[in-house]
């Protein structure tokens, strides 16, 4: 989902209280999996990636061991 200003303000309420949102830094395979698990578990996730797209280093790999499946 794209950045949602409403959600941003909502999750900015009340410092000191627990917030049901998580910041995930890094949009590679790890950041994406963590973000998906958290979103599926009922949390709002802010997934932050430095480059213009998701995918990380895994997208630069050709095949993966030990199955020789395409990394893409």
């Amino acid at each position: 989902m794209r950045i949602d200003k409403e959600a941003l303000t909502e999750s900015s309420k009340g410092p000191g209280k627990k917030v049901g949102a998580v910041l995930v830094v890094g949009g590679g395979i790890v950041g994406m999996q963590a973000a998906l698990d958290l979103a599926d578990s009922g949390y709002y996730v802010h997934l932050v990636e430095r480059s213009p797209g998701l995918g990380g280093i895994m997208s630069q790999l050709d095949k993966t061991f030990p199955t020789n499946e395409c990394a893409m």
Partner: protein
Amino acid sequence: MGCGICAAKCPKKVPDEFNLGMSKRKAVYVPFAQTVPLKYTIDRNACLYFKAVDAGKKGKCKACEKFCENNAIDFDQKEEVIDLNVGSVILAPGFQAFDPAGLEAYHYTEFKNVVTSMDFERVLAATGPTEGHLLRPSDNKEPGKIAWLQCVGSRDINRCDNAYCSSVCCMYAIKEAMIASEHSHSPFDATIFFMDMRTYGKDFEKYYNRAKYDMGIRFIRCRVHSVEENEDTGLKVSYVNDNGDTRDENFDMIVLSVGLESSACAMDLASKMGIELDQYDFAKTSPFRPVATSKSGIYVAGCFQGPKDIPYSVMEASAAAAAASTDLASVRGTLKRVKEFPPERDVSGEEIRTGVFVCNCGINIGSVVNVPEVAEFARTLPDVTYVQENLFSCSQDAQDQLAGVIKEQGLNRVVVAACSPRTHEPLFQETMSNTGVNKHLFEMANIRDQNSWVHGSDPEAATQKAKDLVAMAAAKANYRVALEPIEVPLTKSTMVLGGGPAGMTAALTIADQGFKVYLVERKEQLGGHGLKMRKTFTGEPVGPFLDETIKRVNGHKNIEVHIGAEPVKVTGFVGNFHTSLDTGVEFDYGTAIIATGADSVSVDEYLYGQNPNVMKWFDLDKKIKEDPDFIRETKCAVAIHCVGSREPERPYCSKICCSHAIASAIDLKELNPEMNIFMLYRDIRTYGRLEELYQKARSMGIIFVRYDLESKPKVEEVDGELRVTVMDHVLGRPILLAPDFVTLYTAIAPRGSEKLSDMFKVTLNQEKFFQEAHMKLRPVDFSTDGIFVCGIAHYPKPLDECITQAQAAASRAVTILAQEKVVIEPIVAAFVERDACRGCGLCVALCPYGALEIEDTTEGRKVKLISASCKGCGICAATCYRHAISINAFTDTQIEAQMHALLHH
């Protein structure tokens, strides 16, 4: 829209970082074709306009803006700082590949044909600079002979500071060598120069064997110290072979297998977050809390935690999610957003009114396919009442317009002829739902990826094919019916099988989030192999952790512990399982985690069981703990590695034996520094930070002697004393040892997995370890929904990895338990004609997901469909010779209508 016109018109080319500078990209670009979002970005440092502006001059160019047909370029956008308030943070910044430019001996920056393994990945890739053709950089000729040099930037304290093993290079080098030889057109010679072959993971050893014996890849045990360039840009490598002779050999190309390290960016992130790093600049964690950083509420996953492969990174991602989720369980769902749609219009009684939308996709389709002609053709199709051409069907404007047209024209079927349903079907379906029309009354024709992109040289035929595809989609749409998501109830509890460290960690991670757990342990006490562990490989005592864990499990209000119990019957499916234990207890639960462990095997070689001083694994640890005087009084100890592992009978590495053996040897040496200790090994596999153990052992004077499978050591008893003979490779002759005791590191093999595999309908690999759904991307899931695996029942692994995997399995289970019901997309198997089913069971036997069962009904034997477990693969429908079953949205009628349209329009 991702049409790419901006990039086509941009005049500025810069090196493409995705291909590591081996090709060029434009200043306006997408990082790679499959990225998400597929939106072009301006690289401010390369853009001619911005470069001028940033230098204080008047900016020119803006070609991209001029040519963009959708006004999607805005040069006035400014960087914004956004404040976020979050409950937890997960750091997953990844790694950077070691830069070998500083290692002069390899001449990476001077010799063109010396590349890194990351460079070589791009050379092999179809999307890379050579489009997957195996060509070397100096002359674009196909190399016939390539050498891989291992441990570049790893296991090296002389030339760089990375003392650790990078964990993945042995395997990726084998992979690159295999793929390169598949790409090669001529006889191909791939050679890997290595120190220890570290193929320690699940199915890795078999991969190594395949490379060595089936594909003829050469493995030479030697660290190459320098590379020279020949006149023809070929490369000369000098090395010392097994017999101690120095050899020179020429190669066309050299790949440096570079290690993984933390990037400056990741370290900067760590310092901003205030978390501690270890001596290698990875995030500091503890083996008992492997994803927790030094700061509460901040977790780490992936290679910033330590060098590791993809599956273990993915496990850590889920584990970190579980840790964050545990902290925030009390506010779960408070910020969750649910999309709401207007009530659906019942279209079942209406006449069919199909709208066809033909997309130009900028020039992607329109420059090849005659779109107006296709649109005209669509008007002639039966039941098509509205046709429209779009420049970009996926734009926000086009979506709003589509919604308007559906309402105005009273459309009850929509066909979009455009790009791929893989990327865009959900978007169009959402627009339909927004207008109150069931999203399954939609059909897509892919006239871009499967047409204009591949038939660019033949516009006429491409136009004809587009018509065929549109006719087929419209014909199928006629038979599409409204489908509703299938909902089944969910029992919000989990059964965890196995009360060792993995099972207990999984149970606590779920119970701490407020869900009920039934923890079932076969033995009369909790703890599993943890009870026998004195300390972790990094030296922390295990006892206090285990005591605390057992205490927490026993006292937890959400955990019901059943010790001395085993399941005898398991029925049901995701959300609705039922189990009977042999103690007579029965319960319902929604998800299950299998953590039943594995054991070290006993062997009948090396006098095991015949001489009391031939021990295995924990026998020695027990001796160290209970009888230290024995250790102090002995003079010589021998440890034999790979006993029963990496042999034809068990062609896998048991992964933890090297580290355990070395850690125990260090203990022996500390208790008795005078003791002579010999480690008889095949490869030392102290991967990652465990390499420290190996370094320490060698510095303490522990002696490592390598043996081959062909010349295994001999253990004999002479006059009541042990004698060990082993062939020494360095000396080239056998050496005779007279140890006081011998410790065997025997293989670790699963226990009782076959019975559980039958009971839960989950699969095992050849060695009877539980088989995950996907080796890389679903490392703790089974193909059968709602069941997960962790610990050494999956594969041998050290305690910290068991804990990570247990947290990961818990995270996966919680993604189900956190819902109110099990909701599934209705693209599943359904009866067309239940009467036709004879209950023959063919489909049941073939279903890979356990989604079909035979039941006795009043009408006889019938198949029972368990929609919650169905993945819609269609094997049952294809198998059923009675045509009783089909897949929703892929029915025989629909497919026949498509074929009819293709052949007769």
